[in-house]
């Protein structure tokens, strides 16, 4: 476990989500690697990381959709591996693709999920009205979901997922592919839900959205590389290091650098490596470490020790393949 334990949650009571050394393997691939954290009721907890870093896999395990390979997770105090059905009664889940029925209208989608979540008949109309207003879809109740623009679609999907007022909501990249205005609107809704006491677990790969969370876990390659309030993380990484390493052979070097002490992430960029590292990383130490592993190091230089760089390198899509574009 390479994440520090979270700071004291804002509201002190039993954690709404508690995860202890959770692991998910697909064959030899470790998608989620010993992840641990807790969330407090009413908290907005963010999972920030690039695609393929294990965010969705974690969320799916917490919703009882995937069985953890090892470790333990409880949601609303219920073990997700042992009683996934019981977990489902306490959560709302919005999957990465907007899982609406495109051929159903706004109202039909809401009504369907209302039925599925067992919203009492006498409340259903009021809840649908609430969701329609929340999504800004007043007057468009009879529009097929496929005819809605991204932002509306996304808020409708959220409405479907929270129609039954679950105490804990899991949102998997809810804002991907949505314009900035809609994203802001969406985060306002999330804050309202949080104010009402709902725990919101949200994943994103947009760095600027990190600010909206109460607490944040930075994830890369299945691990939590940092966890804390956004302000704390900023402080910690404000003078973090971004290094450029000229070395060969490249792919072995990328692997080796990843395991080096103080290195958070490594990626092939053009003819060299870009490393994200802690501020006080010793360049000589890194050179020696790599050399000991048989890597020929030609040069190491600091290139951009800003928070932006740290986040960008962390949240870049599949670091190894992104290099091809540069």
């Amino acid at each position, binding site marked *: 476990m390479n994440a520090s334990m979270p700071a004291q949650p804002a509201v002190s009571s039993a954690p709404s989500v508690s995860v202890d050394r959770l692991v998910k393997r697909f064959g030899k691939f470790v998608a989620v690697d010993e992840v641990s954290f807790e969330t407090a009721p009413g908290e907005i907890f963010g999972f920030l990381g690039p695609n393929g870093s294990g965010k969705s896999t974690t969320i799916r395990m917490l919703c009882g959709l995937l069985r953890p390979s090892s470790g333990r997770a409880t949601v609303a105090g219920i073990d997700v591996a042992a009683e996934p059905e019981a977990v489902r009664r306490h959560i709302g889940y919005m999957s990465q693709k907007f899982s609406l029925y495109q051929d*159903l209208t706004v109202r039909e989608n809401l009504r369907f999920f209302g*039925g*599925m979540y067992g919203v009492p008949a006498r409340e259903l109309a009021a809840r649908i009205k609430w969701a329609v207003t929340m999504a800004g879809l007043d007057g468009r109740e009879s529009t097929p979901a496929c005819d809605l623009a991204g932002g509306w679609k996304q808020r409708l999907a959220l409405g479907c997922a929270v129609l039954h007022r679950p105490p804990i909501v899991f949102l998997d990249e809810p804002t991907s592919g949505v314009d900035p205005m809609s994203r802001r609107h969406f985060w306002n809704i999330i804050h309202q839900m949080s104010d009402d006491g709902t725990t919101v677990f949200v994943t994103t790969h947009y760095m600027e959205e990190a600010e909206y969370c109460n607490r944040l876990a930075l994830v890369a390659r299945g691990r939590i590389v940092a966890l804390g309030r956004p302000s704390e993380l900023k402080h910690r990484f404000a003078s973090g290091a971004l290094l450029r390493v000229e070395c060969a052979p490249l792919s072995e070097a990328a692997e080796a650098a990843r395991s080096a002490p103080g290195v958070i992430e490594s990626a092939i960029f053009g003819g060299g490596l870009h490393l994200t590292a802690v501020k006080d990383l010793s360049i000589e130490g890194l050179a020696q470490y790599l050399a000991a592993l048989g890597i020929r190091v030609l040069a190491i230089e600091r290139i951009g020790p800003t928070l932006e760089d740290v986040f960008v390198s962390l949240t870049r899509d599949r670091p190894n393949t992104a290099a091809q574009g540069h």
Partner: protein
Amino acid sequence: MRWKRLRAIARKEIIQVVRDWRSLVIIALMPIVMTLLYGYGVTLDIKHIPMYVFDREGSQRSQALLKGFQASEYFRIVKVVHDYPDVVRGINSGRCKFALIIPHDFSKRLAEGATVGVQALIDASDDNTANIIIGYSDGVVSRFSEQVQIEWLERQGITNIDPPLSVDARTWFNEDLESRAFILPGVIALVMAVIGTFLTALTIAREWERGTMEQLVSTPVTPLELVLGKLIPYFGIGMAATAMCAGLSTLWFEVPLRGHLTTLFGASALFLSVVLALGFWISVLARSQLVASQVAMVATFMPAFLLSGFIFPLDQMPAQIRFVSYFVPARYYDTILKGVFLKGVGVGELQFNFLALAGFAFLIASVAVLSFRKRID
């Protein structure tokens, strides 16, 4: 099981079916097209076999023999040729299936009381047709030679001759020996197998492909609710298709429906349950629409076509194949259909078949429900 969730799923499926009107048109057309296709297109009756005649004698006697063929509805003399190569060409090109060659000394040898051979050439590439041609032509020739014998006996002064034996055939169930009456009831099984399995196989695979299944399984819905809710609309469609096929067969093609409608629809409900459950199961395993549709084709249409007794009689199959056919639910349904349409029998006579269908329905539905995991790995 919660009634509310079941209703929500069924309502959603119905909306989706109705809104997808192109598929709905195909669903509505299929029973009609299949019934018309099999009603008009597929006939096992062999009539008006095209035949060539090479009469090397051209006498009154030889013409009398040919009249026998002309009078038969089984043969149609399409050409009279005058040399042997023409006969060969006719058979080779497929213009005739059968050629009769009468020898040049036909009437002379008949008068002598000798046995005269007339040559028959038969295109036996279709062995079944060839067998039937041999049987029919043998019949025509026998009648002619009987006539010759009687004439001869009459000339000897023996009159009032009756043949010692005659078959008094009475055909039951399909009095007019129309293959249509035999085939069309089985078409219902075929249509149901396709509609039932195909559509359900697609409906669940589609949820996987579009990503809606992930949302669906994150709700508290149970597999049983999902299966029942999803299958209800298709059950309705299947029963409507049965009614359409049965209506078209009886009203248009005049296939008799001698049994009770309750027997027909009861059996259809059972068979429909079997194929719907099978479709659901395939869909759970396949997860992609393409794979699901292919598996559905192989798992239902083919056995329903080949191993149900629909067209190909099961009694004539080798024991091993016959054994396999016992695992084909369509076999039992086909037996019931032929029984209820042609024989007018009821549940009593068909109870084994009803039990078999019920057994299959229960078994496959259970497996389908149990194999559905609310997980996405």
